[in-house]
C-alpha cells in the first residue's frame, strides 16, 4: 500500500503533472485511488473506452508489444476522444497503479489550465514524433 506522499512524489516524476504546484498534486493524488493488479489480470479490455486514467506505480503492464513501467500514463487519449482501445492492456507482473476516474480527470482538466496545457503539449509532441 502506498501512502499519499509517495503518490505525490510519483506524480511529480510525470511530464504532464511536473509543472503543477505540490498542493495541487496532492489534491490530484487524493482524488485518485490506488489499485493493485495480480500478474495476468486484464487492466483494460480491447474495444472498450477507458473509464479512467491509470498511472503505473510499480510492476509492469503490457499492451500489444509495449511494456509500461513506473510513470507510464494510460487512458487520456481514449478518454478525450471516446475511442475504444485497440489492444488489451494486461498486468505482466503484480502491479500497482494510481487510478483517476474519467469524470474526475475531466473535472481536473477543467479546473487546472496548466494541466490542460501540459497534456496538449504532450499530445502535440507525440504527434510530432509520430507515435500514438
Amino acid at each position: 500500500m502506498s501512502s499519499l506522499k509517495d503518490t505525490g512524489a510519483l506524480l511529480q516524476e510525470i511530464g504532464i503533472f511536473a509543472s503543477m504546484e505540490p498542493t495541487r498534486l496532492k489534491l490530484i493524488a487524493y482524488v485518485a485511488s490506488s489499485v493493485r493488479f495480480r500478474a495476468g489480470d486484464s487492466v483494460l479490455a480491447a474495444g472498450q473506452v477507458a473509464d479512467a486514467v491509470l498511472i503505473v506505480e510499480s510492476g509492469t503492464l503490457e499492451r500489444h508489444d509495449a511494456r509500461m513501467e513506473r510513470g507510464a500514463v494510460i487512458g487520456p487519449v481514449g478518454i478525450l476522444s471516446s475511442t475504444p482501445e485497440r489492444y488489451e492492456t494486461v498486468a505482466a507482473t503484480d502491479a500497482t497503479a494510481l487510478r483517476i476516474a474519467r469524470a474526475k480527470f475531466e473535472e481536473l482538466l477543467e479546473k487546472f489550465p496548466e494541466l490542460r496545457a501540459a497534456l496538449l503539449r504532450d499530445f502535440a509532441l507525440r504527434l510530432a514524433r509520430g507515435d500514438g
Partner: protein
Amino acid sequence: MQKASSAASSKDGHSRPQEAGMERRLFRYIWQHSSREQIFIALIVIASIPTYFLSLQLPKLIINGPISEVSHDYADGPARFLEITIPAIGWLGTEAVTLFNGVALAQIPHLVALCAALFVLVCINGGFKYFINTFKGQLGERMLRRLRYQLIDRTLRFPQSYLRRLKPAEVSTMVNNEVEPLGGFIGDAYATPLFLLAQALTALAFLMLQNIWLGSIALVLVLIQTGIIPRLRRRLVMLGKMRQIAARAFAGRVGEIMEGAREIRVNGAADWEKADISDRLGTIYGIRFRLYRAKFFIKFLNNLLAQVTPMLFYLAGGYAVIRGDLDIGQLVAVIAAYRDLPPPIKELINWDQQRVDVQVKYAMIVDQFSPPDMPAPRDVPAVPVPLGGSVTITNATFGETADEAVLRDLTLTQKPRGRVMVLSDNPRASEMLAEALARLVPPLRGKVEVGSRDLTVLDDITGGKRIAYVGPGVYYARSTLRDALLYGLRHPPAEAIPAADDDFDVAEARRSGNLTLSPRLDWLAADPDAETLDDRLLDILRLTGLYEDAFELGLSTRIDPETRPDLANSVVQARAVLRFWIEEQVHDDLVEPFDETRYTTEDSIAANLVFGAAQTESAREDFLLTLPAQNVLRASGVADALIDIGAGVAATLLELIGAAGEDDTILRDVPLLDLSETDAIAALGPTLASWRNTADGQAMLMRFALRYVEPRDRLGLLDTAMQDRFLAARHALLEARREEIAALFSLYEIDDYTPGATILDNILFGKVRIEAANGRQRIRKIILDMLDGLEMNDAIALAGLSTDIGNGGRSLSEAQRQRLALARALLKRPDILVLNRPFDVLGEDAERALLADVLARLDAADMPETTVVAALSRPALAPLFQRVVTLKDGILSEDRTAPSPS
C-alpha cells in the same frame, strides 16, 4: 383579434387549455382572462365609496355639532342622531323628505355616538381595503400562474430550429423571474387606478360640495400635479439611463488603462489618457448635475404644492368663514379632505409609470415566445391510435433554409416491418431524415407520411407514443432510473374524476387555465403491461445490456428486510455459498469479512468502533460523540488517538481546500470531508493548534478521524498497533452500551440480514478490498454467475432502479445513457423506431451486438409490426438490415434491398 383561449375539454374530462397565439397587448391579455374578476372588483370599489364619503363627512358633523354647537344648539333640546333626509333640490322643485327621524341625543352622548360611528366607518373602510388588496393579490397570482404555464406550454411547441437558438438559462429566467413583476401589476391593472380615481374623485366631490371655490382650487392644483410631475419624472428616468451607460463606459476605460499601463508608459501617452478620462468624467458630471436639478426640482414642486394649498385654503376658506359663507366645521373638513387627495394622486402617477414599464416588458416576453413558424396546438385523442401502413416520403426536401437544403427531392416507401439503414456522405442529411420521421423537423417541401397520416400535423400523443426516436447525446431530467425508463410510457390517466372538481387544487388549476391533471395520479394505468411491468423492465434491461448496470446499482442500495423478507433470506443464504466459492476459486484477497474479533481495515474507524451498520455514516459519528460513548472511549485510552488522527486528516484537508480554491466542487467526492462543514472548518481557524483547545474543534477532529479508512485515504495514520487499540475500544463499548448500540444500529450477525448495510455488504458479510483492481466488478460477476439459482438477482436489479441518475443523467456513463434511451424507446412498443447515430460512443463490436439483439427481438412475437429506420455512422453494420438507402451529395444515390432470407 384572436379568440380567447378555449379550454377544450376532451372526452376524458380533464381540461387541456390551449391557445392559438398570445395577445401582445398586456391590458387586452388581462381583460381576456380576468374580465369577470375585474368587473367584480370594480363593483366592490364602487361599493366602498359611500362609506368613504361618509367618513369624510363625519368630522365635520362632530366639530360643528357637539364640539362647537354651530349647527345645533343643545340648549334648544337634544340633537337628532342618524336622521336621514333627502334635501330639497331647487331645480327639480322637490321638497326635503325625512326618511328616518333619528334618535334624540344630548350633547355628550351625541359626541360619543358620532365618534363611535366614525370608528365603525373606519373599520368598514379598512375591511374594504383588506378585501380589495387580497383579491388583487389572488388575481395577480392566478394570472401569473396562467402566464408561466402558457409560456412553458409554448416552449414545448417551439420548432426545433427556434429551440436551438435559445439559451436555456435565458428562457428559464424569463419564465421565472422576469414575469414576476407582471404578476404584481396584473392585480393592480384595472382595480388600482379605479380605486385611486374613485378615492380622489370622492375627495374632490366632497370639496366641491362644501364650497365650489375651495373645490376648484384643489382641482387646479391636482391638475398641475398630474400634468407636470410625470413628465419631469420621465426625464429623470432617461437621465438615469444615460448615467448608467456613461458610468459603464467609464469603468471599461479604467480597466483598459490598468491593463495597458505598460503601453501607456512606454508610449508616453499618459496625458492623452488623462484628457480622455477628464472628458468622460465631465460627461458624467454633466449628467449627474442635470439629474440632481431635475430630482430636486420635482421635490421642490411637490413640497410647494403640498404647502401652498393649505395656505390658499386658510386664505380663501377663512375669508368665507368670516363672511359667513362657510362654517368652521366645513373648513376643517375641507382641509382634512384635501389631505386625503394627494396620496391617491401620487399613487396614480406611480401606477402609470409602472404600467409603461410592465407593458414593454410583457410585449418583449411575448415576442420571445412567439417564433414566426409556431405550430398551432392540435387536438389530441384520449388514446393513441396505432400508426399502421407504410412510411411514405414524397418529393421531400430537408434543410434549415431552402438555400441550404441538405437532402433534396427524396421519395421513398417502406412497408411495415421494414429494417432500413440510412447511410450518407453528409451526416446532416441522414440526421435530418431521421429527425423528420421523429417529427422534430418538418420537411421544407414535400410530405412525410405514415399510412395516410401526415407527420407534420400529427398530434403529440400519437406521435410521441407510437414513434420512438433515439438520437445522440440523450438528455435526462433528474429522476430515478426507473422513472427515466418509464418516461415514454406515461399517459394522461383516462379516468375522469368528477369529484375532483371540488378539489381546491383542481379548481384553482382550471381558473388559471392550467392542465388539471395531477402528476400524482397513476399515469401508467393505461399501459398494456401495467400488470407485468417489472418483468418487462427486466426483459428490456437484459436486451439493451443494462441489466448488469442495474444490478450493480442494486448492490449499493439498502432494503428493509421486514418488507422484503424473501430477498433478505436469499441474501443471507448467498453468504455461505459465496464465501466458499471465493475461498476455493479466487486466488486473490478480494473481500475482508466482518469479524467481531478483528479490525476491518476496509471500513471507517467509526464502523469499527460501533461494529454495526448505520443508514447514514454520520449516525455513527453522532453516537460516538455523545458523552457516554466518549467516556468509554476515554477509559479505553483511544480518545487522544482519535484527536491525533483527526489532526493528521485535518492538516491534509486544509491543504486540499486551499488547493481547490474558490470552486470546491472537486472536493465533493472527498469522503473525509462533508462540504457543508467547510464553513465550520473556516470558523475554527487556520491553525490546528487552536482546534485542540476548543470543544468544537476537538469534536471536528474526532469526526475526521472517525471517517478515516486507511486503504482509501492513504495518509498512513493507522498502524496495526493502533487498530488493536480501537478493537479493544469496540469491545469496551459493546460491553458498556450493547443495548443502545443494538437499538441504534444493526449489529453484524452472520445469520441475520443487516438492515442498515447495503445489499452487497450483506451478501459478502464484509467489505470489498478497495485496492483490488476491478474488485467490485469481479465480485459482481461472481454473484451474477454463481447465485442465479437463488432467484434474488432480479430483485436486486429492480432495487437498483430506484437509484438517482443525477442531473442530466450524469451519474451514468455516456454509453449507459444511450442504452437507456434505447430501452425507453423499446418499452413503448413503437410502430416506428427511428435511430439517429445513437451508439457511436459504443465500440463497433458493441454496437453490432446490441443492434443484432434488438433486431432479432423485434422479429420475434414481441413487436412484430415495428419498422426500423436507422441512420448510422458505420457502413459495416449494413448486413444487419434488409434495405440500405445511401444518400450522396444531397440526393438518393442507392437503394438496395437484400434478398429476403428464408
